């Protein structure tokens, strides 16, 4: 008789850190207290380019409680070499060096740090610092600089450049009876996580520091600090247990970390530097993008050619790059493809990865163009996509580890009721409002990165798993707890997961949707090793019931090891440890992508997004009233947190479609809507019912868990689906995001 064990993996589970978060017990980087903590307040520059000719700090220094004002003129010695400032995520170039010299490289640049005994004194004093500057001509308008765009000579690590052209795109396009050719634009955006950036540096004495940093990977901050300040790794511990949203802006160490560490080392005191909401607009952002797309097809709807070029801005000092155009070569079968990606230098800070960096931008362009093509061909947009379905990765000439995009399209369409759609634009009404149904597909990489984990079992039957990775709100604590609990047959309450600490087994930054697959696999393997060890110990016990069993014959359940065929043949884990006279067993394991699989296969997640909009075209008001997102992302560990991830991504995409725009005043070279009143993200009223469907997708190659990651895929096709729905409603094709009232009204 064999028993079926109900697993935590695959079942909806509440967040294990939920109570800590809603009660405020979860402490974020800017909330950690320390005796005698000093507070730093950043003075931000106001010009986009030029030179600091003088900084008058006398009035600020006279404010009671002010200890020191750091500027480029009096800062402690730091290395001059660019290499020391590199971090794990840095693009090619010369990283920004805070307070390094008198050069102003972008508007909002930190030009001084006021350190005082309390926050109020620091803030007040900062307003009295008088910075004199000599401005030089700057340029921030990508439109004007597009002719200066260049193919980045040095590729950014981890960012695939566009594939080589296939076939002859120009000729095939010219020969195509039906062609669509347009420009598609997306505004610059800022991440705006709820938690602003902060670093609290605890001076431990003897040159040692513990740093609570808002970061998506503690190792990145630690390595940066040790390189820049010349500290031995053992003297720097970085902790980031909770992150209040990051969306990519927590990948690289930001200037508040540099400033806080600099001040702490100089003053030999604990120092906190927190940025204001306004200052959250003074570093990385999602770069505005100009896509030029041309697609051509035969009357039978078979794609003959795809040409997609994207231009993005970067800073003067780094060549930021992301994957914008490659998706156009992956979504469809097409023999003639030319993809191109260029960047242009602007006098802004370097752009930063932001949720699914590049993908929703390029996918908005190609999925709008394919939608336009469907109308030109008078064919259903969904059928056109399925008619040109790519069964393999034609960019790299490899099969996919799995690709249930077709199923996602079908199931999403069924759930949405797509078959009831009237094909003609402006043909569906509800009272005054025009109704539109649109769809788009989405794609993102299913990556895995080397992660290490530790699993420790105590004699009391409590399990602790640990990994240095961060949980930025995605649910990593919860899914690792589920994986570990299943391995040892424990209740989730008996498992503790520890994350976000350089004292823990190493992990890279959290990002790219790779954490569930990577940290999950590492925890799984560490627990697997623990199971093996326990089993061997159990077999060796006197009068062991399991003496003749092999590992495959046993299962772990309710804190016991039992024979699968006869669960009455059982021994408790606690007894095993007691017999072996051990108070704990600790195992370490590292999970890394399989090189051979990577060589032979491509790994991607996919989605099909269906949107319904209602438009009052006289007044330019659009309401998104329904979204169905069907996602193929391998095994779903926790349907509850997974659904939240997709909903969050879809809302992000809705913001990209209708709301989000960081507005640059090109005369000043300055982002101007630097607050959440004027930088619009969707409010509750803007967010409709979002139905998330997880399509069954078995993947036995991607990683030991068959998990593909969910953080990014929700955003990718959403903006395109909404824009396509707006066209269906109104007959107006808006190729510039966000689609605001002024762009929509007649």
């Amino acid at each position, binding site marked *: 008789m064999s028993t079926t064990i109900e697993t935590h993996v695959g079942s909806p589970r509440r967040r294990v850190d939920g109570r800590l978060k809603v009660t405020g017990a979860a402490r974020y980087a800017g909330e950690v207290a320390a005796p005698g903590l000093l507070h730093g307040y950043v003075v*931000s*520059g*106001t010009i986009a380019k030029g030179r600091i000719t003088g900084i008058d700090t006398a009035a600020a220094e006279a*404010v009671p409680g002010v200890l020191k004002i750091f500027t480029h003129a009096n800062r402690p010695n730091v290395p001059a070499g660019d290499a020391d400032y590199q971090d794990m995520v840095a693009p090619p170039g010369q990283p920004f060096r805070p307070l390094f010299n008198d050069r102003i490289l972008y*508007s909002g640049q930190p030009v001084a740090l006021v350190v005082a005994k309390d926050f*109020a004194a620091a*803030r*007040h004093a900062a*307003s009295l610092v008088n910075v004199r500057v000599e401005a030089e001509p700057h340029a921030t308008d990508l439109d004007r600089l597009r002719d200066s765009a260049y193919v980045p000579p040095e590729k950014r690590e981890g960012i695939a450049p566009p594939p080589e052209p296939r076939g002859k795109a120009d000729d095939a396009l010219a020969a195509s009876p039906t062609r669509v050719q347009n420009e598609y634009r997306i505004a610059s955006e800022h991440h705006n996580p709820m938690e602003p950036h902060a670093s609290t540096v605890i001076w431990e004495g003897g040159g040692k520091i513990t740093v609570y940093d808002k970061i998506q990977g503690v190792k990145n901050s630690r390595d940066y600090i040790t390189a820049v300040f010349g500290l031995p790794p053992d003297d720097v511990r970085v902790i980031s247990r909770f992150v209040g949203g990051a969306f990519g802006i927590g990948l690289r160490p930001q200037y508040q970390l540099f400033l806080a560490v600099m001040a702490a080392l100089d003053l030999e005191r604990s120092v906190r530097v927190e940025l*204001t909401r*306004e200052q959250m607009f003074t570093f990385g952002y999602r770069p505005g993008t100009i896509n030029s797309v041309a697609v051509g097809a035969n009357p039978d709807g078979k794609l003959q050619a795809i040409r997609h070029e994207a231009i993005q801005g970067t800073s003067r000092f780094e060549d930021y790059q992301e994957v914008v155009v490659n998706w156009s070569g992956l979504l469809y079968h097409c023999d003639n493809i030319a993809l191109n990606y260029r960047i242009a230098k602007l006098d802004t800070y370097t752009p930063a990865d932001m949720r699914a960096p590049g993908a929703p931008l390029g996918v908005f362009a190609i999925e709008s163009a394919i939608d336009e093509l469907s109308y030109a061909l008078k064919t259903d947009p969904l059928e056109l996509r399925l008619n040109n379905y790519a069964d393999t990765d034609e960019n790299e000439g490899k099969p996919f580890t799995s690709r249930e995009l077709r199923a996602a399209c079908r199931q999403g369409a069924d759930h949405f009721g797509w078959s009831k759609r009237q094909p003609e634009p402006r043909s569906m009404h509800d*009272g*005054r*409002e025009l109704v539109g149904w649109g769809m788009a597909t989405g794609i993102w990489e299913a990556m895995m990165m080397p992660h290490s984990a530790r699993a420790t079992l105590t004699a009391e039957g409590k399990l602790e798993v640990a990994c240095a990775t961060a949980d930025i709100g995605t649910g990593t604590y919860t899914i690792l707890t589920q994986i570990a609990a299943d391995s040892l047959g424990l209740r989730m309450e008996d498992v503790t997961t520890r994350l976000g600490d350089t004292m823990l087994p190493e992990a890279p930054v959290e990002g790219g949707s790779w954490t569930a697959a990577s940290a999950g696999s590492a925890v799984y393997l560490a627990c697997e090793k623990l199971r093996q060890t326990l089993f061997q110990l159990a077999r060796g016990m006197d009068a062991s019931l399991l003496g003749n069993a092999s590992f495959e014959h046993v299962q772990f359940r309710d804190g016991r090891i039992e024979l699968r065929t006869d669960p009455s043949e059982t021994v408790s884990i606690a007894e095993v440890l007691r017999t072996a006279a051990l108070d704990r067993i600790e195992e370490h394991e590292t999970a890394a992508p399989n090189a051979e699989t990577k060589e032979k296969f491509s790994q991607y997640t996919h989605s099909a997004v269906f949107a319904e909009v*209602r438009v*009052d075209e*006289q*007044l*330019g*008001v659009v*309401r998104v009233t329904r979204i169905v997102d069907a996602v193929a992302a391998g095994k779903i560990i926790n349907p509850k947190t997974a659904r939240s991830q997709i909903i969050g991504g879809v809302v992000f995409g809705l913001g990209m479609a*209708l*709301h989000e725009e960081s*507005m640059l*005043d090109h*005369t*000043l070279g*300055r982002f*101007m*809507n*630097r*607050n959440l*009143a*004027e930088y*619009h993200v*969707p*409010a*509750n*009223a*803007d967010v409709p019912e979002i139905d998330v469907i997880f399509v069954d997708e078995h993947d036995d190659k991607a990683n030991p868990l068959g998990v593909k990651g969910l953080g990014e895929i929700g955003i990718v096709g959403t903006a395109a689906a909404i824009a396509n729905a707006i066209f269906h409603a109104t007959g107006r094709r808006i190729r510039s995001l966000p689609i*605001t*009232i*002024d762009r929509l*009204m007649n």
Partner: protein
Amino acid sequence: MNRFSYARPNDLAEAVQVATAESRFIAGGTNLIDLIKYNVERPARLIDITRVPGLDRIEPAPGGGLRIGALVTNSTVAYDDRVTASYPLLASAILAGASPQLRNAATTGGNLLQRTRCYYFYDSGTACNKREPGSGCPAIGGLNRIHAILGTSEDCIATHPSDMCVALAALAATVHVTGPIGDRVIPFADFHRLPGDRPDRDTTLEKGEIVTAVELPPEDFSAHYTYLKLRDRLSYAFALVSVAAALDLDGDTIRTARIALGGVAHKPWRIPAAEDFLSGQPATAESFARAADTLLSGAQGFGHNTFKIGLARQAIVRALQQAAAGTPQSQIDKRIR
């Protein structure tokens, strides 16, 4: 944020007495605190008037109508039975703005005195004639999507951001103030100013004067009204254009019309000629469009905000249609009627 002292007077006389040019009265603080954080306001002293008695009541006005004390919160006004029954336009306009949390803190007097949302006004790293007279106006020729199309000057194109004030303008409320020169009653239309060459002055309040109440006249327009607000998302954004419309109808003929616009000028925009024109006209889209022409006469765009002229025209017509039909815009259901 600068350092400031704090005073908490126990009555109105004391509040007036301790006020100086460098002090600011504070009640809900929903705008003032932000402005202090942004170094836009640098008061030497905050005078907390929340304990001043007598300003927190809604009561019948002597000549009919309703008198709303300056400290009554926006939420209290919006949900007051007398307001929802007789002045639903006011309740609707209040609910179109901000969020429940903000409305719970924000007061009637404070709402009148909230300042523009112009990006440059909030950014002490840039020039702004409203913040620093004489420094210039980067919004003209800069980012001006949210800026004014009516009553602008070459010094300032900022708008007044309030929703509540647009309804108060349409309802012809009066503002009761007291101060060093004694008590005054200011017609709502005269309370806020156009920028002219003194954009630093938002209102006609004299130094040291304090708003004590807003009074609504008896004429309530409770049968035919609407507050239609158009903005960059469906909730929690300032108006690009808003319209408070109120009609008194005799069958299909308009006896009296009131129209005020928000989001288009330095003050709630009301043109008596447009209202006079509608008197005696049939309640049709054609009449409404002609009234819109009068209201928007002289409207001027600055590039990014030029769309507001066409949007305002459409919004005026739609709002008057909603009012005439007795189907006011719901502030909960986001479908525009």
